[in-house]
């Protein structure tokens, strides 16, 4: 077993294990953390495939931004505790059987007969001065400039969408209403609440 292989299997193991852990996790926050772990494993495997740039992007953008967004939402909505009762009733065995069969079939297709080393040989490693980033960048700004622009549109869309959907009030601008501020009364701003002593119900 070569070193490559050892690395591959170790990362693969973590990749698969943390993915499984993620889907079976009862706690959303923990699930996010398992997902982050599997992203790290994925990034490692990508590096084995000489896709350094993408691996780094995966860590920086995905783990650094997207997963944090997940965590943020989970915490904001306070849903990590509220759904403790994970139910895998009934469907789990069936689902697993389906999954196993699909994996088996895919393995048959993707197995050594089609993509083994004797069929597709591994390319030689690039020289040390090979810059994955440069190569991608060259392509991105030339051949793929059109998709690149589209990606920009997509992000614009995401911005508009997120704001439209989640913004609490009317999306119209907030304006200062001076007359309102001037004519404000104390009773508009302060509310007196009679507080009863809390009973021992929220223990």
């Amino acid at each position: 077993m070569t070193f490559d292989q050892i690395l591959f299997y170790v990362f693969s193991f973590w990749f698969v294990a943390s993915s499984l852990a993620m889907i079976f996790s009862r706690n959303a926050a923990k699930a996010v953390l398992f997902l982050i772990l599997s992203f790290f494993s994925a990034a490692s495997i990508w590096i084995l495939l000489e896709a350094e740039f993408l691996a780094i992007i995966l860590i920086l953008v995905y783990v650094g931004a997207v997963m944090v967004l997940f965590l943020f939402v989970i915490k904001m909505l306070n849903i990590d505790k509220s759904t403790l009762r994970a139910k895998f009733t009934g469907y789990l065995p069936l689902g697993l059987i389906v999954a196993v069969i699909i994996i088996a079939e895919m393995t048959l297709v993707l197995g050594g007969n089609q993509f083994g080393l004797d069929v597709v040989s591994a390319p030689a490693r690039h020289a040390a001065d090979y810059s994955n980033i440069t190569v991608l960048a060259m392509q991105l700004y030339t051949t793929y400039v059109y998709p690149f622009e589209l990606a920009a549109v997509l992000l614009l869309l995401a911005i508009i969408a997120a704001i439209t959907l989640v913004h609490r009030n009317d999306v119209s601008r907030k304006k200062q209403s001076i007359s309102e501020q001037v004519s404000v009364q104390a009773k508009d701003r302060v509310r007196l609440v009679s507080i009863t002593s809390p009973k021992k119900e929220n223990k």
Partner: protein
Amino acid sequence: MMNTFQFDTASLLVALPEIFLLSSIVVILLLDLFLTKGFKQVTYYLTQASLLITGILSYSLIGQPETLIFGNSFILDDMASVFKVFMMGAAMVAMVYSRHYLTQHSLFTGEYFVLVLLSILGMMVMVSGYSLLTLYLGLEILSLSLYTLIAIARKRSSAIEAALKYFVLGAIASGLLLYGMSMIYGISGSINIIDIAAFASDSNLGSRETLIINFGLVFLVIGIAFKLGAVPFHMWVPDVYEGSPTSVTMFISTVPKIAAVAMLVRILVDGLGSMHAYWSDLFMIIALLSIALGSVVALMQTNIKRMFAYSTISHVGFVMLGFVTGVVTGYGAATFYILAYVLMSLAAFGVIILLNKKGFEADQISDYKGLSKHSPWFALMMLVVMLSMAGVPPFIGFYSKFFILQQVISAGFVTVAIIAVVFAVISAYYYLQIIKSMYFNDAEQELTITAPMDMKLVLSINAILILVVGLFPDFWMRLSLSLF
């Protein structure tokens, strides 16, 4: 590497409609920020104007020689231009109807129109997409806009539920599509349709290559079937149709269908047309299942939008039958069918929206009771639409079915044609339910039509077109055929 790339700015002209539309989007987005409440209508008119101009630009490109730009990832051909023109037309009509709905239900915001325009941009990208990547990006622009559009009725939990279901299932479908794309890329070494086509039509294709292409094809077909809403990937359709605000339902059921067909053509016909023998069987089964399930389950519906959802599934089955034939004329028939379907669907939802008023969605079949008495003209329009959808001559719905059946039969699938027509008869039952409500029952509630004149006018023209195009379908048939 730098030297191999040449960029000719003049070639941008062929993408002028897209460029114009994107610019308008930005302008409208910005302008909308500065419009006070009383001037919100400006957004609407600007939207219509930009759609119109985009349409005109697309129209002016019809007849141009086939051009590939942006590193072979963008194609300009007649199909693209014609589809774009139709999409703009349909979108304009849809916007006319939408305005009434949005006003009635206090959903009238600038974002709505911007999102619609963005989704249309996505569709245009799909229509012109000639690489897996641009197709995917276009599809995502479209999908993400649609998710948002559905959820734009933020206080309606059914809309949110619909958006969420669409989102989750759509993401799975995207995943499957991407997986298929990765396989195609992996075996052919390219993501450009033109290269893929060259690879797939190589007569020396080995069994390994065939296997992998077909393996990828399964996922691609599933992704496309999902977008079209074909059985067994149809589950989102009824829920989304029912839950969405009606104007969005109308939009979803019309313009994106054209784009989905375009994507189908690009990938399966332009790219993998040589593998037709492999995917047509799959398509046939999916098509027949769609026709059958759409017809049968729709029978049980009481919600008219949900019913149309199933009816759409059934119609999509017919469209897919056109592709089963594997000949150019069959694709033409499918195109004719989808265009006819868009026309009918617009009118159908137009009538629904016409009856909408605050707090009244007119989405139950029983809401149409006595419509013929109260508003004979629009009842007649609905009658035309329903009969057309049922495939009764002399309306366009018949000629589109006829064209498909003719192609299916001439391809030798007589049994398939018989199954299809039998289910078409079954589906006639639920169209009759609406006719029944309108004509045979007496009104239970007061129906008032508050729609503005422009909507009434456009709706009337829309419905009359169903008849007129039905009476003179020749031009449209030939047009559809000329696209391939």
